[in-house]
């Protein structure tokens, strides 16, 4: 009996270690795979040139990725600027001020929104946001736009990220013990003061990680953005012009135009870039979380 338990213990321990290692190795394997595939590109260009150059003419063998990186960053930043305040206030309201009834209605709605496939957000973007941008928003800012633009991409992306970040933030705020809020109130804080001084403060690490995961998700989101962002190599910084984020580049072109030499490698490099940037975003936010938790 004793012997059998020891064996079971050994096997389960071994099994757990193996699965852990596999999971840990996953990004490394993907990264190495992409690197090997992208390798031919590095023979003619330095990594720095690839990243910083804006000259994208594959047929001439010129691969400058900056417009795509910038496009991704641009769309992501826009979406974050729209989504973050909305999520923060909505989550605070739902967890601290709303009636039970509103909460009961909202939670399922948020879950449904979070579960919608992104192509639906894309279609909605084409039907609603694109015309809105070209007919109303662009004229307000005194420019003209086809509507397929960085701005539209940002809005669609933010709408996609809202339920995702909102869900996380609600969870974060709900983990703040009621007793803590009661403590602040009993010391004479108003409702809002107790939220500001205690609930939000206590939630800093959680808020940051929700934002970080939201940004990482936005950065990698492909289909919905691709449908409204215009997909032409960005040439200006006007948000009402079209852009071409990294994921869209890969998704649009992989499997096509493979006759162009090095194109294959270029797309692999784009994927590698995406992977590295998303890892970097994660690391940066993890560092912030670590720092705020220590305080």
């Amino acid at each position, binding site marked *: 009996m004793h012997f059998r338990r020891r064996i079971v213990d050994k096997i389960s321990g071994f099994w757990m270690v193996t699965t852990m290692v596999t999971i840990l190795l996953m990004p490394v394997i993907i990264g190495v795979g992409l690197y090997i595939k992208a390798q031919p590109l590095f023979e003619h260009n330095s990594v720095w040139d690839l990243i910083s150059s804006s000259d994208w003419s594959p047929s001439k063998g010129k691969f400058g990725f900056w417009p795509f990186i910038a496009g991704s960053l641009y769309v992501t930043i826009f979406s974050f600027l729209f989504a973050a305040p909305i999520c923060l206030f909505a989550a605070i309201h739902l967890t601290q001020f709303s*009636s*039970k009834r509103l909460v009961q209605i909202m939670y399922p709605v948020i879950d449904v929104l979070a579960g919608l496939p992104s192509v639906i957000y894309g279609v909605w973007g084409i039907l609603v946001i694109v015309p809105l941008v070209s007919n109303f928003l662009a004229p307000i800012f005194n420019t003209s736009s086809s509507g397929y633009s960085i701005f539209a991409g940002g809005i669609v992306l933010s709408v996609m990220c809202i339920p995702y970040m909102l869900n996380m933030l609600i969870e974060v705020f709900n983990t703040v*013990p*009621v*007793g*803590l*809020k*009661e*403590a*602040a*109130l*009993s*010391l*004479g*804080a*108003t409702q809002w*003061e107790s939220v500001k*001084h*205690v609930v939000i*403060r*206590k939630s800093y690490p959680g808020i940051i990680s929700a934002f970080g995961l939201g940004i990482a998700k936005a950065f990698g989101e492909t289909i919905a953005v691709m449908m409204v962002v215009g997909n032409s190599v960005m040439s200006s910084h006007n948000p009402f012009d079209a852009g071409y984020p990294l994921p869209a580049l890969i998704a649009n072109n992989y499997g096509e135009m493979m006759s162009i030499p090095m194109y294959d490698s270029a797309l692999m490099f784009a994927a590698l870039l995406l992977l590295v940037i998303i890892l970097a975003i994660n690391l940066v936010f993890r560092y912030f979380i670590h720092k705020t938790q220590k*305080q």
Partner: protein
Amino acid sequence: MSVENLDTINWNMPETDTIASESSPIVRINELNVHVKDHHILKNINLEIPKNQITVLLGASGCGKTTLLKCMNRLTDLYKELKVTGNIFIEEDDILNTSTNIPTIRQKMGLLSQRPYPLPVSIYKNVAYGIKLKGIRVKNLIDYSVEKNLKEVGLWDEVKNRLNSPATSLSIGQQQRLCLARGLAVKPRIILADEPTSALDPISSKIIENQFKVLKKHYTIILVTHVLRQAVRLADNVVFMHDGRIIEQGKPDELFKNPQTEELKNYLVEGN
């Protein structure tokens, strides 16, 4: 002479005269009822809490002790599903139907909960929090009050060299004393203590208990406890609740020696 003046005199007296304070209840609860949907949590509560004494609330789990305390500083407002009716007079102000703003009412009552909940800031800021909310901004005054209140709960010597470290770095017992100190810093009239020692080790519990004995010279203490010995040690009055009602109350020695109701007898038997 106003109520306010009477209080100051009491405060300066070395030992409070029991008879005098019995004649002036600081809290008067009148026909208090609390409902949530069809659950009647508190049923027709009528109660007077004498000033500068320790009143102990006893009763089985779920009988409504915490709810009663929360009514007294209107933390019941947080739970919109609770319907609270009746009157609670605290120094003549009917706090359930008053125009006084609620933070001011709450500052008349220090809350000490079952577990310590230090605010997610430094030790110093925990104590300073309520003082600042009162509108006091003078640094020296705040410093003075922080030191005084930390001394009052016997925590000063332990923390004076690390006032700026997070309050959560203290031990649970120290945290509970910190919570008491920050409550005292807003100069409440009443301390509401909901099983304040249930999460503490015997020594920290003892410190809190001794604190209460000292504090009752200046404060009225309402204490919920499940520890009968603690009730015996501390209580000037005992209120026994059962299923949302007050069914017995009186001096501890009479009540514990001569329980009138079956419920209290059972409670005492099981508690020992």
